């Protein structure tokens, strides 16, 4: 009887540890340093598209043209750099990557699609020094609804950088 209880306790403890590890990994795989909005909340107000027309090369340290489309019926405002951050998925975590692109010092305004269908075009220059193998990167943009700084909205797109 005592042995059975001991085994049960050990089993429960083992299962708890396993589930804890899994939760930790899941959290790490979604955490984006410096980004206040969760991944689950992204891509609802607006989306980022890897513009197929502009023929992005997806090469490291090359121009990457991204189309931003508003899915909501409200105007979205971005900071001067579109709130754009680039992350590389490495060691089960997202790590910040340099964006070489400079941006004009003004807020960027994304009107609702039915008002201005072209949306916005943001250009990025992802740079991973010494990149030897293709890398999975996540490009995130964060803004807010016009006249409501607290209503933060975000979107991301995953791209393989060569």
């Amino acid at each position, binding site marked *: 009887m005592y042995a059975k209880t001991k085994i049960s306790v050990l089993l429960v403890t083992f299962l708890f540890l396993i589930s804890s590890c899994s939760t930790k990994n899941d959290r790490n795989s979604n955490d984006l340093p410096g980004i206040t909005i969760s991944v689950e909340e992204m891509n609802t107000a607006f989306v980022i598209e890897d513009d197929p027309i502009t023929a992005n090369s997806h090469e490291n340290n090359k121009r990457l043209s991204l189309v931003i489309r508003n899915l909501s019926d409200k105007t979205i405002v971005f900071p001067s750099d579109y709130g754009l951050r680039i992350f590389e998925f490495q060691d089960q975590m997202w790590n910040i990557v340099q964006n*070489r*692109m400079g941006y004009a010092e003004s807020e960027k305004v994304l009107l609702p699609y039915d008002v201005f269908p072209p*949306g*916005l075009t943001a*250009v990025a220059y992802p740079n991973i020094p010494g990149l030897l193998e293709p890398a999975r990167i996540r490009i995130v943009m964060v803004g807010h609804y016009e006249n409501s700084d607290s209503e933060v909205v975000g979107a991301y797109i995953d791209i393989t950088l060569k």
Partner: protein
Amino acid sequence: MVGGVPSTQPFRTTPYGDMEGSCDGCSAEGRGDAPGADTIGLINDILAAGLNAKAIYDEDQITVVAAFRRNPGIQVNSLYINNKSNRPVSVMSVDFATSEWAPTRFCLSGPCLFSAPNEPYQVIPGPGTYAQGTTVGIGSVIYPGEEPIGLTTRISLVPSGYLYNPDNSFYWYTEVTINVDLAYTDTGTRWPTISYTFSH
């Protein structure tokens, strides 16, 4: 209202004739490209304004000419876009990239200094010849004109809005690449990126 067609003409709509050099010390870099008559006339206009001109895109519906100065590097001033389609077109993005070591000018206050950030940057395409319908961050709208003449709209690129190079001046450069993304205003359909490299 974005994308509406104004009643007044933005720049000029007269047919363009043969090109004749009209600017002392200027060079029409478009000459070597054998552009169409419309483009030649457009380049003539830019030459007359004391700038150099280069047709960086010349197709049936759209012609894009870059107007610039050499001093002795290059200072890219504006784009002249001739729209012969029957639909409005928006300038969605204009950005510059230099060769790795090319120094650019750095202006904060007082005299400008030479610096070498060497980073590509995206400018704000100005409202051009229209002030209406243009909001910062929204592509400048190029209004449609009837074929074969079209309407030409000047899109100012100065000030660029970029702190480190407000007038798009590149000194002692080897290569400066300008990239322009256009889209139809009514549908959002993009053009392939127009990319042109000025070489020394």
